């Protein structure tokens, strides 16, 4: 268009409207670029998945040969023989105690942020920031903190100390995930309950939490799965234990799977290394199952909420 004559949009005849609807102008090139970007993005996404597949494949390949029912139901014999039953029990103890501490706190924090803090609450903003920072805290620092707080004064490592450390790891995950699912509960439900003259607490317990329960449970499972694989806190707080017996005394050191893997791969015994791989396989399978289960639950609860 020349700048001399005034441009009248709609009358410049940029294209023939009656032409077939095949790409005109630079659309052919734009389609190429679009296809290129789409393929690149798809490839990047597949690559990310491929890494997971390779890791799992590696663990399965090296760990599957020693896997048996006895491996998960018997206690160890020596450094490389027997099963890892006591390690599984120990892991469950430590994680369960950590979850008992962290999950209620996390859920209540989520409830505070969404249901009780006002929309412009400064405190809520500070808490959210703190939770995000807590989530980014290196777990070895968390372990060290508990070491100084509990292990040194008691002169004793213990499963309890590890539980506290793992609770700190789980807390921000739990709080943030509950907050996110609670935000998905439509505000119209809160208004409906408010308009009936019911206290917020009753609304929370009988309307809001039930609607978000699936999502909260999902967050809990993901937090637990994350903590189950944490090594640094148990290494610092819970690494002195009787490796051959099942221990139910949480006030002493209890054997855990991450510790087993950590100690076994260092041993100059091929059987011990093989046991580490198989223990890793057990851990990965449990965490994977927990994750998949959590996703299924979340999908169901979202379907229930009509999202």
């Amino acid at each position: 268009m020349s700048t001399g004559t005034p441009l009248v949009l709609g009358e410049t005849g940029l294209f023939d409207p009656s032409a077939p609807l095949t790409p005109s102008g630079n659309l052919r090139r734009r389609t190429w670029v679009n296809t290129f970007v789409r393929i690149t993005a798809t490839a990047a996404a597949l690559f990310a998945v491929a890494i997971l597949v390779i890791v799992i494949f590696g663990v399965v390949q090296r760990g599957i040969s020693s896997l048996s029912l006895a491996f998960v139901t018997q206690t160890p014999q020596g450094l490389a023989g027997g099963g890892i039953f006591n390690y599984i029990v120990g892991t469950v103890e430590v994680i369960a105690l950590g979850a008992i501490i962290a999950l209620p706190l996390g859920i209540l924090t989520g409830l505070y942020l969404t249901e009780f803090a006002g929309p412009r609450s400064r405190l809520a903003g500070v808490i959210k920031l703190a939770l995000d920072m807590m989530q980014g805290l290196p777990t070895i620092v968390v372990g060290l903190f508990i070491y100084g707080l509990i292990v040194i004064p008691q002169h004793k490592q213990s499963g309890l100390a590890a539980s506290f450390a793992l609770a700190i790891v789980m807390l921000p995950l739990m709080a943030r995930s509950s907050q996110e699912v609670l935000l998905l509960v439509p505000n119209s439900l809160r208004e409906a309950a408010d308009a009936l003259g019911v206290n917020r607490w009753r609304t929370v317990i009988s309307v809001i939490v039930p609607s978000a329960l699936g999502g909260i449970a999902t967050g809990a499972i993901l937090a637990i799965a994350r903590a189950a694989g944490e090594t640094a806190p148990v290494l610092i707080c819970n690494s002195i234990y009787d490796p051959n017996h099942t221990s139910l005394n949480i006030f002493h050191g209890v054997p855990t799977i991450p510790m087993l893997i950590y100690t076994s791969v260092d041993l100059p015994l091929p059987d011990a290394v093989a046991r580490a791989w198989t223990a890793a396989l057990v851990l990965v399978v449990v965490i994977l199952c927990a994750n998949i289960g959590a996703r299924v639950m979340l999908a169901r609860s979202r379907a229930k909420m009509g999202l």
Partner: protein
Amino acid sequence: MTTWDRTASNPGGDRSASGRVRLRTEPVLPVLRPETNGTQVDANRVAVFDIRDMAVFYGSNCALAHTSLKIYRNLVTAVIGPSGCGKSTFIRSLNRMNDAIPSFRLEGQVLYHGHDLYGSGANRVEVRRRIGMVFQKPNPFPKSIYDNVAWAARNLGMKHGLHDRVEQALRQAALWDEVKDRLKQSALGLSGGQQQRLCIARAIAIEPDVLLLDEPASALDPVSTAAIEELILKLKNRFTIAIVTHNMQQAARVADRTAFFSLDTTGPERFGTLVEYGDTETIFRGATDSRTRDYVAGRFG
């Protein structure tokens, strides 16, 4: 191909032997009618859209069926009807905006200048380049006023004379005088009515052939609505405009032709359908279908 619908040969009842809703879209005689509003739908007028027995499904749910009509060049065609009668579904099917809905399926034919809009040769990006759309809620990009208008033109390679193009788009959208001193400021700082006019400027900046307006004024106050309506009347000389509105007075004010859609509840399944289509004057003053008369008289909907 004549301009007259096949249905024109069935001017008597609004139901054929098959029980389908049939349309009385055109008069029987192919002569120029004395038109009160100055528009003449004659054999020379170009039909931009020729919609033939269109039906739209979302999954197994039928949203719209038995809809045939022609939309003519440089006329404003209004689509009116009660909620849930498929007005938006209809207009969004005209530039393939519904393609993004996974379960969407369209039957029948939508011919655009004689080309099947849903045919294998039709590129949907090209379709939208020619058939623009403005939505119910103003949706400017979080960019400057200038960049909102220039964005599509830049992407389409119309970089030559871009300033002129942006200015003309804003002028034709009757927004230039209000924004010429703050083109670099965020479009989000504009009022709702200004944002909607910006969206129209953005649409016409790439000079589409057709402009589809999906309830463009329903989120606006009366003054802004009047501005949009005035704009529509100005733009119809250069663009073919189809507007969905639930405001009957708006249709009466701006449209040359009006299509009345309603829910067909006669069968076991409820679906939206075209009830009557004709000159706006006819639809509002002398509709033949009782449902149309009841609706425009405000007795339902």
